[in-house]
């Protein structure tokens, strides 16, 4: 059972604290994605788990055993690096077997494991080549193969696909998913690509500035973001935010909209009347007239198109309510002229509310 537990984990580089006391319990066989903006401490966390960085404070345990002082090679973890970090002077075969050979694993066992990895990753034709004679995707596979042969309990990935082009990235994403199904190890996967995180992981951990902002399934973090940061980070184009005020009737008024927004009764901890709130609405919940399902409980308004970006299958439209810009997607798009007036229907059932001060979600039962 390779459950990974981080307890009050801290990493300080001198006075700079990169990881500020995170707690995380990663179940056996689960696939966890660490996401967050650049510099938030994802790699540092992963490298502490790998044993490549010392732990300043707190505890890491793998399979029930505290590993703070255990060397990398004895932790039962394997890592795939962003730069692949293959050994340039060795053939693919030697790259795969190197770790096992120096550990003194018997030759037949080395051959067996290399054969398994080769078969899984379809590396057969490249075994005698040097890394420099491989394409990016092939190098990536060798890097994964090198991790597989160690038969680790925990797989660590640090942005493994960020050097690949979009198409290859999709291909490799599928392969990683298959690999996880087949090998059933615990995977901790660092990425800044939220599509990767959403599609691969069972659990997403969103970090900011050395702290965990929210952890949950992809659906949870998407549908019930715990705060404004997570709401803005997950989902593309990102969620639109508006400044609103709570009315006497418990509705929400946005400057620039005639009608106030109804709020689903009992869903939020509503502040007192007159208090400001931040309203969040995903692009797909402000529907351009005739281009998408009309919401059940709409508020209709007209606004000027400030910018339209045609993507082929959809067009992103930037417009505004009052002085606040928002982005929406027009499905089944038609030609849109900048400056054109367009009708939109805003889905009041789908609004998110945040405290403007703390930025926390006002939804009832949201944990932090």
């Amino acid at each position: 059972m390779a459950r990974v537990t981080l307890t009050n984990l801290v990493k300080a580089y001198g006075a700079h604290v990169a990881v500020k006391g995170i707690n995380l319990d990663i179940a056996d066989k689960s696939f966890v994605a660490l996401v967050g903006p650049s510099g938030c401490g994802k790699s540092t966390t992963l490298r502490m788990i790998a044993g490549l960085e010392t732990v300043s404070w707190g505890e890491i345990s793998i399979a029930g055993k505290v590993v703070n002082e255990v060397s990398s090679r004895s932790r039962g973890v394997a890592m795939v690096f962003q730069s692949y970090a293959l050994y340039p002077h060795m053939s693919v075969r030697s790259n795969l077997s190197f770790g096992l050979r120096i550990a003194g694993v018997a030759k037949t066992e080395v051959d067996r494991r290399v054969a398994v990895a080769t078969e899984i990753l379809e590396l057969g034709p490249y075994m005698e080549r040097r890394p420099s004679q491989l394409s990016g995707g092939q190098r990536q596979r060798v890097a994964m193969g090198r991790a597989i042969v160690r038969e680790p309990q925990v797989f660590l990935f640090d942005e493994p696909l960020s050097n690949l082009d979009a198409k290859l990235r999709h291909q490799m994403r599928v392969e990683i998913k298959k690999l996880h199904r087949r090998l059933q190890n615990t995977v901790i996967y660092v990425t800044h690509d939220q599509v990767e995180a959403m599609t691969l992981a069972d659990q997403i951990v969103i970090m900011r500035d050395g702290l965990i902002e929210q952890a949950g399934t992809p659906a949870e973090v998407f549908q019930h973001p715990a705060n404004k940061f997570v709401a803005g980070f997950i989902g593309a184009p990102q969620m639109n935010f508006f400044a609103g005020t709570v009315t006497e009737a418990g509705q929400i008024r946005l400057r620039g909209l005639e009608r106030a927004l109804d709020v689903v009764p009992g869903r939020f901890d509503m502040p007192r009347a007159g208090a400001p709130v931040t309203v969040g609405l995903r692009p797909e919940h402000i529907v351009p007239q005739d281009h998408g399902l009309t919401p059940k409980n709409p508020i209709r308004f007209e606004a000027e198109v400030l910018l339209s970006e045609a993507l082929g299958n959809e067009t992103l439209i930037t417009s505004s309510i009052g002085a606040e810009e928002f982005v929406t997607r027009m499905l089944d798009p038609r030609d849109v002229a900048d400056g054109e007036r367009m009708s939109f229907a805003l889905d009041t059932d789908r609004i998110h509310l945040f405290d403007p001060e703390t930025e926390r979600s006002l939804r009832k039962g949201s944990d932090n």
Partner: protein
Amino acid sequence: MTVQVPFDLSQLDFAAIAQKERARNRTSPWIVVLSVLLALLWVAPFYYLMVSIFKSPEEYAGSSPFALPEGITPVWANIVDAWTTANMAQGFANSALYGVVGASVAVFIAALAAHGLARFQFNGKTFWFMLIFAGTVFPFQMYLIPLFFTYQQMGIINTKFGMILFYTAVCIPFPVLVLRNYMSQISTEMDEAARMDGCSEFRLFLNIVLPNCWSPMAALFLLQFTWIWNDLLFSTVLSQSTDVRSIMSALQVFQGGYASTSPVVVLTASLIASLPTVVLFLALRKTFLRGISISAG
């Protein structure tokens, strides 16, 4: 936007285009003349050397130094004469020993130091680096006098050990400088991958870092070998006897006491003495031109 009719390539005169391109790249005749003159200037001494070794001492004395030789057979006599007069066999063996051992040990030690300087964080790192680096700053001649007296006191003057010790030490600083820079460019992720693969620090150095540094190391070996081989000054000061002195000091017999030796023999001897470095360069040329790609990983 309208779709255009494809441009008809056949209407172009490719020969004319090529000529125009060539004209653009044509070198001025003055540059050519100047290059030829400079080349001749370089080749002249070499030509003089090459024609002279094929002449007998009498023929050399009786004709212009630039005249072509009458035959090629006198070269054998010249070689034998040079070889025995200067006891070149012993000199060759000694110099080969100093060059091979000195240069390879120096480059290896330099690689160890460079690895430490490029990879580890420790106190006084800059200080140590500057200290080693200082070895390349001062002219070597500065060491001559202190070295001579120290060697005398230690009793290692005029010994093979003393010679190797000196050559090894003096050949370390420059390779440290080069290798440190080279190793700094090797991805540290590769080191980390190797550590996770279970490498100890020393194995990491030996199995991962060194193999990726072969090309600069080969080049450095060649440079240091050549320096040791060609060194006359230190060899003359630190060794006297025939069985310790290097090939270059062996050649000194042609001065002074044996000054009566014909120039053709002296020339032959110097040519023979410089052959090994040329051969070594040709042999190792591929190794460092091939250049194992580091960035590829």
